């Protein structure tokens, strides 16, 4: 017997199942998420991507965001037909069922369907009715935050003691926050809050406005040009995604529109993460205010927030996480693909209800935050700054690359000490030092940016790259993070450097392999200072190899 989990979302929906005991998303029409859009044509019903694509052409026949109408006495008129919200939702469920059957080759009958925690009885009954109309046996309606917390529990062992968990769900068009109390596997939603009209689309719009303002300075009026606006919207979404991992990107769109004298206008500029953050800060801060309200409403009375689990694609924006860290002293989890967490959790629940053993989800994550020593306002009156600025945070899925920007202290500062620490304390002195090096700076005014990039691989080796934007001045050093932690624990296990070297051996041939074998042999045979030198030689070798790969060569 196989059971499936369905996230019936406002903007997008998805379906998952337990494949050999592991929660697994199912690709419907080749995509893990399907737009919750239904179009009624004369002789057929179109659902998902195709319906979304035709929406602008056939707005009278297309229905989206039906979830907002569930439980209401509402009749949609679409292409001459009268349909209820339940019937529209049933079409979405039918499309997911059909898609999943094609992919898995199994009949989709028993399902768990998720609903918002704030759904009332009428809304829940309407969802059950939709399932029935779609020919599904709805085993249970599961609250969305409960579903997300279930799947996160498959990653980390749940606390035995009562635990308070926040589910922060920032999607494409809606924001929900829920406070859950988990006691011996029983989950109770203590409070919810949200904004039904806030999400990733608003962040895209902020960037579109930035580009429009820029183009106006060139004498263009892109808002009057449908083609230019369509290109700008695509560009904005792409830029937003790239700015989640880069601090600065270049956007370029040639022949975008024409100016008031008929000449072609190009958009060519850099966009910094700071610029995006300045524009979306009020929106993100409003989500934090809602989180505080939910925490207050939950009346925790002495209990404190244990974990925050991130759900929804827009939680990939670094500022969302930074604001949560600042506002709540709780461990933040983002190990699960935020677009799929709710559906995956529903498949876990479906497995539990049908007696299928659910396996743990194994995800490699950073066990500790990694960051650098910086000066902040808290360091006034100190001889040496002690502020720890995380660059790559705890629980980040590995391998990962994260970039942050910091600033010089004085005019023509000659160099900067790059001191890398790991830990969760806000002070460097309370965290473990991983390594340090000096980076010589080119002359520049005070407050000039210096970029720090951490590339952390599965073997616990972090490649720290420091650069001065606008110049070719850059330096990269490899540090063994796992070994720093291991040394502190006094363990005698195989080191991260050795593990990485052995893992690479099978992939290399010829000179590269011979060189690595020799370096590894020398590393294993040496002790003390000699071993340190041998380790650095190995780390240099890894760097050279990665450079070669980036240049297009094969390892």
């Amino acid at each position, binding site marked *: 017997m196989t059971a499936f989990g369905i996230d019936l979302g406002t903007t997008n929906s998805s379906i998952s199942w337990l494949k050999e005991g592991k929660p697994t998303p199912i690709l419907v029409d080749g995509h893990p998420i399907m737009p919750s859009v239904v179009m009624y044509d004369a002789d057929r019903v179109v659902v998902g991507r195709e319906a979304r694509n*035709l929406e602008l052409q056939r707005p009278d026949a297309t229905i989206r965001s039906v979830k907002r109408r569930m439980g209401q006495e509402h009749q949609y008129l679409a292409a001459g037909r009268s349909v209820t919200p339940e019937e529209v939702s049933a079409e979405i469920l039918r499309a997911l069922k059909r898609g999943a059957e094609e992919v898995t080759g199994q009949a989709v009958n028993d399902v768990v369907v998720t609903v918002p925690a704030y759904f009332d009885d009428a809304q829940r009954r309407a969802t059950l009715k939709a399932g029935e109309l779609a020919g599904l046996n709805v085993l249970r309606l599961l609250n969305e935050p409960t579903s997300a917390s279930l799947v996160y529990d498959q990653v980390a062992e749940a606390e035995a003691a009562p635990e308070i968990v926040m589910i922060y769900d920032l999607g494409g068009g809606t924001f929900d926050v829920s406070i859950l109390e988990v006691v011996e596997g029983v989950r109770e939603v203590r409070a919810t809050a949200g904004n039904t009209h806030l999400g990733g689309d608003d962040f895209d719009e902020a960037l579109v406005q930035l580009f429009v303002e820029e183009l106006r300075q060139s004498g263009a009026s892109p808002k009057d040009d449908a083609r230019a606006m369509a290109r700008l919207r695509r560009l904005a979404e792409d830029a937003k995604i790239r700015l989640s991992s880069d601090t600065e990107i270049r956007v370029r769109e040639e022949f975008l529109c024409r100016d008031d004298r008929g000449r072609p206008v190009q958009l060519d500029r850099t966009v910094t993460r700071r610029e995006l953050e300045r524009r979306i800060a009020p929106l993100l801060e409003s989500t934090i205010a809602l989180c505080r309200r939910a925490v207050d409403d939950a009346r925790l009375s002495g209990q404190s927030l244990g974990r925050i689990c991130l759900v929804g694609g827009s939680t990939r924006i670094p500022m969302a996480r930074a604001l949560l860290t600042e506002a709540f002293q709780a461990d933040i989890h983002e190990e699960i693909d935020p677009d799929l967490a709710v559906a995956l959790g529903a498949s876990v629940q479906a497995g539990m209800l049908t007696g299928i053993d659910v396996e743990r989800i194994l995800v490699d994550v950073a066990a500790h935050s990694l960051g650098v020593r910086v000066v902040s306002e808290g360091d006034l*009156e100190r001889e040496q700054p002690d502020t720890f600025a995380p660059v790559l945070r705890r629980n980040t899925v590995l391998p990962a690359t994260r970039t942050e920007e910091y600033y010089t202290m004085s005019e023509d500062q000659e160099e900067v000490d790059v001191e890398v620490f790991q830990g969760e304390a806000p002070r460097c002195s309370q965290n473990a030092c991983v390594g340090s090096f000096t980076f010589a700076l080119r002359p520049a005014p005070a407050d000039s940016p210096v970029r720090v990039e951490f590339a952390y691989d599965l073997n616990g080796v972090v490649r720290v790259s420091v650069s001065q934007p606008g110049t070719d001045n850059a330096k990269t050093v490899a540090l063994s993070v796992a070994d720093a932690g291991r040394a502190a624990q006094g363990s005698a296990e195989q080191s991260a450097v050795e593990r990485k070297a052995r893992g690479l051996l099978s992939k290399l041939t010829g000179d590269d392999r011979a060189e690595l074998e020799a370096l590894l042999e020398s590393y294993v045979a040496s002790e003390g200072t000699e071993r340190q030198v041998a380790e650095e030689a190995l780390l240099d070798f890894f760097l050279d190899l990665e450079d070669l790969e980036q240049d297009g060569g094969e390892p």
Partner: protein
Amino acid sequence: MNWFRRLFTPGREPTPALLEAPAPVPPWALDLLEGVQKAGRAQARAMARIEALESKLEGGFADLRSRVSPRPAAALSFDEVLDAMDILDEACRTLEGAGNAPAAQGLRGVVDRLQRFLARMGLTRVAEPPVTLDGRLFRAVGIVERPDLADGAPAQVVRAATLAGERVVREGEVLINRRP
């Protein structure tokens, strides 16, 4: 004061004043330390290379054989090429609109060449507005007014769709006509 400074969002704060640090380590000492470390590493790597050469001279030709074996071609992505072709189409339209037909024609020739290259790679680019909108191939992303076209008809392609056989590998975007 050789430190990073953190910038707080959304605005910048003035640089905080630190107490004067104790006498810094003389620059020559740091240079010396870095030099010693580099020399150590270079020596370790040189030794490793010598040992590798020795092993090869001793008859380890297997490595040599594997070294000359052909490497698999890097996976190619055509996204950049397809983006560039969309922009070339846009440039052609701009030039035609500005009355520079010969230049537009020249650019069209370039687009045709690239299109032939893609065809050899098994890709079909659909850059002309289809007669009827196929939602599997194109997404309607905007509206224009074209009195010569039927209401709702695809009027202009913003982004060409691309097929590999019957499979859509890149969804296109079109503007549709809306009669006032």
